[in-house]
Structure formats: structure tokens, C-alpha cells
């Protein structure tokens, strides 16, 4: 049972008795049943809550990663500064005055949750905190005031805290902030109107006089709230409709972008943002998983024709499975009809970007022997795209291992028109010829083209011609990471920066069953942090050198810092992002999985 002051207990008992006898159907009469959303006005457009801060504090501060970070020299150095020591001394003093260590104090003070809101009507923000101990909350409030007054006195400044009363509640004002405690609630606002409104609602609810115009009673909020889970660490809600109508962030809601990469990645989401009434966000923090999700109501009919390339016709476009060759660092799979996007470029991009695309179209058409790049070349590839980044082994090549080891990247697409295979091959050879011409002018190494049949597939690769006398086990040039390759198997076209990755993907494509697509998943990305850690270790001495140059560290200090970073990285298994379009809902999930 929460600890309450005697007056609060009386008030609570009185209110309970009153509501039980007079208004049994009014569930909001009991002080401990009042939620933050009950206190906030229905005009609130931004609301965020951490219902159980103790859980979050435990997850963060008791986690093994935190302990390991605290054991690093860098942490010790950072916390040995005079400023930090002063901060620590301040905390200790605060704890002694409060009579409680900071952690149990915060856990108790925020046991009923932390809430933040912004109300455009009053143009004010509010921070609410619900304690389980009203006496401790008052003590905390008084200690904060005492410290502020001590600090001002020490600097010979006037009393920074002014006190007044509103409906029997003591209200304090310091600078722009107004705060008050009412029973277990701490109310902190930056404008009087919102503060009064919250206090009024709280008191009126207990007297059953509340007007009912609260955020909790807003239909839209209730709809958004109904989809929220129960075990989330934090939850937030934004009223997009009001923001759009107010003309805020016009660019975001305009549905147009200047940047092709942004368009390809999130162009479809912008279409939803243009129409969706609200958005919710959920944060989940567990010892072995950290998740963040944004959810928006979504309807297939909201998607205009120009953005069909993103979701497919009637929103049925789904991404193929993720490719996972050996030592995959990052793998991405998505549905994007690039030919349709290319064709609709004028409607998607601003004038400059559209002009650039037109220019690129002309140049690329030349490279592809005069064929129309948008219609014929991009049109020859299906909308299911797979991209993968993988660590290279360098074992099967005759070129020296590069000193800096970069991952290989590959794009895999399905060919709608298999007849285009030859056209892609010729364009690839032409591109390598052009590169060789430039390399020869600079006196740089050139590529040698190789072609091989591999099972039912074919691989055309360009490998650097290594200078005579260069040792294979020597520290090779950074360029030796690259052996551009194009490969064909079944209906697949593989375009890779390294021949070895292309071979592996070709083998995978040969053995894999037919590609299945999940219509609900539009885009998925998986980053394997363990594999990324391995490639960083491959390049550890370069990271150390970079650290020395950037931070002026000696070699040992740089090695320690990079070692600590790699150790922390080692805790994370993988990071994933998924964009899904379930029934009437668009959801973006971000998830970090921590090693068990």
C-alpha cells in the first residue's frame, strides 16, 4: 500500500466514501485511480509516459553492459573530473538531506509513472510524476527548493522560488517553471493556464465535478491507446491531424522529397503521414532486448499511384526473405518497384532532383546500348530487392590482402525479362572498360575480366591485375577489396563488389527454394553486430591509428579505448528494422537483441 500523509488519507477516504455512496459508476473518483491522461486536456497533441520507471532504471543500471562500461578506464577517467566529482558531492548532499539514496528515492518518487504532455491550446508543456509516497514527494519538493535557495544565497542572488496558493494547493514558481504537489502527484508546467487546468481537473475529479474533457476521454486517444500493449516501458501518442492542420513541418507532410535515397527508404511512409490521424510509439526495454516501434493507422487507398512503387498494387507488395551468406554484416530485403519510381520521378521529386534523374537516365541509357534505362533496364528487374554486406575472406584470390579490409556488398534482383541477361553483361563489360581507361591514365592497377560457368549459373568478374613483385601476404591497397562482379542464375541477377560474395550468393540462389514473399513485410533490415565486431577486429590497428590521430592518444590508450568499444559491441547480437503493413496499420519496428 502506498504511504500517504494523514491529510491525504483523510481526503482519499472521504472521497472514496463519497463516490461509493453517491456516484458508484464514477470510477475516476479515487485519487489512486486517476491517470495522467485524466488530468490532461483533450486538446493535448503530444503525450508520452513511462508507467514503471523503476523497471527502466533496473534494466539500465543493473545491466551487465552498464557494469562493464563502468569498469572501463574511459568511464573512470570521465568520472574522475572535478566537475563530475562536484556533481557526485551534490548528489550525496541531496541524499543526506532527503534521507534516502538517489535510486530508491527516484524509484519511490516515480513509482506511479512519469508523464509528459504538450497542449497547443495553452501552448504549454507538462511533466507529471506520480509517487507512492506523498510524504517523500513533499520532502523531495522542499529539498529541491532548499537547494535552489542555498545556491542563490551562495551567489548573492535573490530568492529564486516564489510561493502562492491555488485552490488550497501550494504552488511554487522558479523561472519559467511552475510546480506543485497534490497528494502523490508532482505537477510541473511552464505556463499557469495548463497548471491550473491540471489542478482543477484533479480536484474536480475527486469532487465529481470534472467536465470530462480530458485526453483520456478523447475518442482518438482511446483508439490509439487500445492498441498499446501492457508490458511496454514507455508509450507515446501524437495527434498528427492537429499538427498537419497547424501547418507545422510542412515538408514532412507534403509527401515530396529532394533526396532519392530518402524517397526510396521512406517515401511510402510519407504517404501515410499525409493522411494518418495519429501515431503512437512504444519503447520496450528488457535485459536482453531493446525495442522501439512506431505505429500509424494506414489504408491502402491513401497510397497515390506515384507511390504504388513502394507498397505494390493495393498494398500487396512484400519483401523477399533476407539473404544470409557467411559472415553477413547487414542484410536488407524490400519491395520497391524502381521502374515505376523512375517513371514517376517528376511527381515524387522537386525540379532539381527530377532534372538529375533525367540526366542520369540519359547517361545510363547510353551505357546500356541506347535502351531506355527506366522502362527497359529497370523494368527488366522485379520489385523484390535483396541487398547484403558480408565480410570478405580473401582466401580464393591471387591479389594481396588489403591493409584495410572492407566488406563486400551485393544486390540481388529477379529478372522479369531473362532476355536482358546479355544486355546487363555487355553494360557491365563496358563499365569496367571505362574504369580501366581512367585507371590507366592515373597509372593505377587495372581490372582483368574473367567469365566462368558455375553450375547452372554464370559469373563475370573483374579482378585487379597485381603488379609484379607484390607479395600476396603483403599489406595490399584498399582497392583490392573490390572485384566487381555480375552473375546470373535462374531468374536472378547478382551485382556484387566482390567475386567471392557473388559466387556464394549464386550457390545460395541455386539451392534455395523458390523465393517466398511476406506481403505484410515491406522492408526488413538485419545487422549482425557479432560479424560487424569481427570485421572491426580485422581492422583494429587502423581503428587504433584513427583514434590516435583524432584523440591524440598514445598507442596503448588508443588500443584500450578501441578494445573497450569492441567489448561493449560484443554484447549485442543483432539489430533489426522492419516496416510492416498489417491490416489498416503501418508499423516500423526497431529491435536490438542483447547477448544472453
Amino acid at each position, binding site marked *: 500500500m502506498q504511504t500517504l500523509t494523514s491529510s491525504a488519507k483523510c481526503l482519499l477516504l472521504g472521497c472514496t466514501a463519497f463516490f461509493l455512496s453517491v456516484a458508484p459508476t464514477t470510477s475516476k473518483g479515487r485519487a489512486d485511480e486517476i491517470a495522467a491522461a485524466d488530468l490532461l486536456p483533450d486538446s493535448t497533441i503530444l503525450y508520452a509516459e513511462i508507467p514503471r520507471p523503476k523497471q527502466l532504471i533496473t534494466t539500465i543500471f543493473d545491466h551487465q553492459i552498464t557494469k562493464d562500461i563502468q569498469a572501463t578506464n574511459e568511464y573512470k577517467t570521465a568520472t574522475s573530473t572535478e566537475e563530475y566529482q562536484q556533481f557526485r558531492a551534490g548528489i550525496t548532499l541531496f541524499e543526506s538531506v532527503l534521507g534516502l539514496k538517489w535510486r530508491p528515492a527516484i524509484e519511490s518518487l516515480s513509482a506511479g509513472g512519469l508523464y509528459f504532455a504538450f497542449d497547443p491550446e495553452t501552448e504549454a508543456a507538462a511533466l507529471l510524476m506520480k509517487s507512492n509516497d506523498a510524504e517523500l514527494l513533499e520532502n523531495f519538493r522542499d529539498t529541491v527548493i532548499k537547494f535552489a535557495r542555498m545556491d542563490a544565497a551562495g551567489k548573492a542572488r535573490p530568492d529564486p522560488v516564489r510561493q502562492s496558493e491555488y485552490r488550497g494547493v501550494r504552488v511554487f514558481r522558479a523561472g519559467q517553471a511552475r510546480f506543485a504537489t497534490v497528494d502523490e502527484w508532482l505537477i510541473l508546467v511552464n505556463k499557469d493556464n495548463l497548471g491550473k487546468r491540471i489542478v482543477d481537473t484533479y480536484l474536480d475529479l475527486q469532487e465529481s465535478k470534472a467536465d470530462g474533457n480530458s485526453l483520456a476521454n478523447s475518442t482518438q486517444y482511446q483508439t490509439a491507446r487500445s492498441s498499446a500493449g501492457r508490458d511496454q516501458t514507455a508509450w507515446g501518442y501524437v495527434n498528427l491531424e492537429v499538427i498537419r492542420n497547424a501547418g507545422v513541418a510542412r515538408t514532412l507532410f507534403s509527401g515530396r522529397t529532394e533526396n532519392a535515397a530518402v524517397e526510396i527508404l521512406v517515401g511510402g511512409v510519407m504517404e501515410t503521414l499525409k493522411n494518418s490521424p495519429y501515431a503512437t510509439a512504444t519503447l520496450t526495454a528488457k535485459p536482453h532486448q531493446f525495442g522501439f516501434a512506431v505505429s500509424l493507422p494506414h489504408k491502402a487507398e491513401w497510397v497515390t499511384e506515384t507511390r504504388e512503387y513502394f507498397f505494390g498494387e493495393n498494398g500487396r507488395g512484400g519483401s523477399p526473405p533476407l539473404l544470409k551468406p557467411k559472415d553477413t554484416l547487414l542484410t536488407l530485403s524490400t519491395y520497391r518497384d524502381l521502374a515505376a519510381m523512375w517513371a514517376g520521378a517528376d511527381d515524387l521529386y522537386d525540379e532539381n532532383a527530377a532534372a538529375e534523374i533525367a540526366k542520369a537516365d540519359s547517361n545510363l541509357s547510353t551505357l546500356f546500348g541506347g535502351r531506355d534505362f527506366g522502362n527497359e533496364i529497370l523494368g527488366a528487374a522485379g520489385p523484390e530487392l535483396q541487398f547484403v554486406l558480408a565480410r570478405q575472406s580473401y582466401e580464393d584470390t591471387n591479389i594481396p590482402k588489403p591493409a584495410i579490409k572492407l566488406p563486400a556488398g551485393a544486390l540481388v534482383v529477379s529478372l522479369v525479362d531473362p532476355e536482358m541477361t546479355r544486355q546487363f553483361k555487355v553494360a557491365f563489360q563496358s563499365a569496367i572498360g571505362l574504369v580501366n581507361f581512367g585507371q590507366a591514365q592515373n597509372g593505377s592497377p587495372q581490372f582483368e575480366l574473367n567469365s566462368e560457368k558455375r553450375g547452372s549459373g554464370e559469373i563475370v568478374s573483374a579482378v585487379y591485375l597485381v603488379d609484379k613483385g607484390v607479395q600476396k601476404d603483403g599489406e595490399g591497397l584498399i582497392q583490392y577489396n573490390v572485384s566487381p562482379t555480375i552473375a546470373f542464375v535462374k531468374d536472378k541477377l547478382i551485382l556484387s563488389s566482390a567475386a567471392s560474395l557473388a559466387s556464394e550468393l549464386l550457390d545460395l540462389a541455386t539451392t534455395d527454394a523458390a523465393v517466398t514473399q511476406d506481403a505484410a513485410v515491406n522492408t526488413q533490415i538485419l545487422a549482425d553486430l557479432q560479424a560487424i565486431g569481427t570485421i572491426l577486429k580485422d581492422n583494429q590497428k587502423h581503428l*587504433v591509428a584513427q583514434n590516435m*590521430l*583524432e584523440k591524440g592518444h598514445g598507442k596503448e590508450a588508443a588500443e584500450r579505448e578501441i578494445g573497450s568499444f569492441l567489448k561493449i559491441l560484443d554484447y549485442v547480437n543483432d539489430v533489426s528494422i522492419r516496416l510492416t503493413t498489417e491490416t489498416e496499420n503501418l508499423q516500423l519496428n526497431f529491435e536490438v537483441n542483447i547477448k544472453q
Partner: protein
Amino acid sequence: MSRDLTQVDPQWAWSVYEPDSQYPWSRRSAAHLFRRAGYGASWAQLDEAVRVGPAATIDGLLAAGQAARGFQQEMDRFAKTTLATGNAKKLSSWWLYRALYAPDQLHDKLTLFWHGHFATSAAKVQDAHVMYEQHTMLRQLALGEFIKLAQAISRDPAMLIYLDSATNRKRHPNENYARELMELFCLGTGNYTEQDIREIARCFTGWEVRRRRFTFNKYQHDKDEKHFLGQRGRFDGEDAVDIVVDHPAAANFIAGKLVRFFAFDDVEIPAPLLKPLADDFRKHDLNVRHVVDRILRSRLLHSEYSFGRKIRSPVELSLGLLRGLEGSANTIQLVEELELLGQAMFFPPSVKGWDGGRAWINSSTLLGRANLVGRIVRDEQTKFAGGPLSELAKKYGATTAGEVVDWLAELLIAVPIADDVRQQLIGTARRANDNPNRQIAEVIHMIGTLPEFQLC
């Protein structure tokens, strides 16, 4: 006292400095030596120099090259790692890092001198590896005989690419290198004719670069007789360098340039003043160590004729500040900042190198220099002896505003400051007395704006 060099007795000038009442050996004079023979020194190093005296301090500077072998090996490995990116700007960061921590300060400073003398820019060479090879060669030969340096630079791939010698064919001799060999590298103007240039250019025909290495293409070499600088014969490039370096003007030209590098800039050295040094230089086979030794020990260097008579280059300004305050640095960022101030290592502006002297200062760079000083001392990443500025000041006994100002002035400023300037600095320190680190940073930033601080 007059600073007119024509009034200076050459015998006095080049005799060995012995501290006396007029020019005592103090922290300030030791700081002067370290600024000229290196990039600056910490308070502890100045104390040690005062304790051991000028002769032993200069001995230490000259001998540090041998003592720094372990450091050099580590820096070589570091450089190779840096080179993996193929980015010459990264190499520039590496050199700043080396210079900041180098125990062989004189050696590094002389490498910078030769880099400015045999100026080669990575902007044209476009190959960080050959730039590093040249740097290594300059460092190895920095204190040796000048003839070896001149021979090595003539075959250096970076220089051959930079001055277009790599395409020097017998039917179309390229005169660039022949001209600069005499005008900028060995003799100076007025000591050769256009005919000499044409003839020497023929000597270098067939000197090419293949796969980053010097190669001699005998088919493109002009084997016929050449006639220049009073000599006649079937000379090749090596002979041409020998003949040019053997010219009487060479000793004067190099010794004069070294005196201007160490003692003062923007001043014409009277011939009678330079002659004894140049003659001694020639007598010792143009041994650079010998002439540098004489300059560093000379009364001239330790006198009013040299104190504050140079303008700090951007490299000297930033590294001097950091070394004085035992600071660490983000040398990648520093390279960008020094480039804006006109000095990026491995990227000299032309074959003439950096003009130096008053050319470092204009209304834009003056502001930039002060801002750089402010940025360095306020940057949270910068550590001073591994900690904050206040701890460093406390370590050396500077705690009050007056002590902090006096400590910094002696450590960082080449000439004594006027009392009203000192009071202004103390006022600055007092205004920021609520935070000791900010207080010192404010004072240093203000020092960075002083005309006195621009002097070396």
C-alpha cells in the same frame, strides 16, 4: 638596442653563447631555443634546460635523433597504417602527431625545413605513398651532408612527378627541375644563366618514375656533351647535382636559409655576417649538422637579434601551444585548421614552399589564429598532461590570477609583455574565476590575440 645586422661583428655573432648579465640563461631564453630548434617545450623541460645549461641542452637537441629510434620505429608502423587509406591529408595528421610527441624535436623541425625547401605537394603528386617515401628520405638525411640530400631529392619520385621531370625526354628536355635545382634548392638567383638551365635539363633526360620508383631510361638520356657553370663533359644528372652543389654560392645559399629559419626571418643577412658561417659550412663538406650546431650555439641566436624576430608559422603556433601546455590534439581536425591558416604539411602552396615571415599574418589569418588557440584550449577532447588545464597550472604552482598570467606569459610568449597587457590578462582571469579551467582557457585565448604571441 639597435637590431641593425650590419652593425653586428661576425666574430661575436658566431662565437659560442655563454650566459652573461645581458643575455642570461633563463626559462625565457630556454623557451626561445626550444621554439626555434623544435616546436616548443613544457614548463618541466624548461626547468631542466635551465638546470643543465645551454650547452648540454643543445647537445641534447642534436643527439635526440639517435635516442628516438624506438619512437621512430613506432611512428613508421603508425605511418604505414595511416597510408592504408591512401589519403595524404591523413599523412599530414600523422606528421602533426609525430611532431607533437617527438623526442627528436630538432630532427623533426629540420625535416619540416627541408620539406619547405624541396617543396613538393601531394595535391599534384596524388600519391601518399611516394610523399611518405620523400618525407622519410628528408628525415634520414636532414642532418647529413647537403650533397646527399640534393642527390636523393633529384631521384625522388615525388619530386620528379611534381616538377614534371618524369617526362624529361632527350628530344624535349623539361627545364623545370634544372631551374629549381639552381634557383630554389642550391644557389639562388643570379648565380646561373638560362644556358646553364638548358644544359642541366639535358643531364636529367631519361630520369623517370615507373611504378613509384626512380628508373633511368638510357634510351631517353642525352649522352652528348654538356657545358654549364664553367664545366664541360658528358654529364648525367648525378654529375649535374655534384657540379651545382660544388658551386661557391651553394654554401652561402643554404647557410643563409638555415640562419633565417632558426634566427630571424624577413631580414637580409649582410654578406660579411654570413661569410664565416658559410665558409665553415663549405669547409665541413656542407655538413648540415655542423652548421646547425654552430647556429644553435651562436651568440646571435641567443641575443636581441633573434628574440621574437620570427613570426610563428601556423604549425609552430599550434604545436608550440600544445607542447607548452602538454596538450593532446585531434590532429585530423588540426590539419583542416592549419590549411585555412596557410600551412598544410605535404601540401606546400608552390615549389617555393611557404613564404613565411609576415606572409603568415593578414586580417583573416590573425583572427583565425586566435580562434584556433581558443578552440584548442576549450576543446573538451584536449587533455593537458592527461587532465584539465587547472590541474596543469596547479602542478606548476600557478593558482592566483596573477600567477596564472605570469606562468602562461613566460611559457608561451616570446617577448616580455607590457604591464598594461599583463593587467588586462589578469582582469580576464578574474572575470572567469568561478571556473578554474575556463579562467585559464580565457586567458590563453586572449594571449592568442596578442601581437606578442604571434612572434616566435
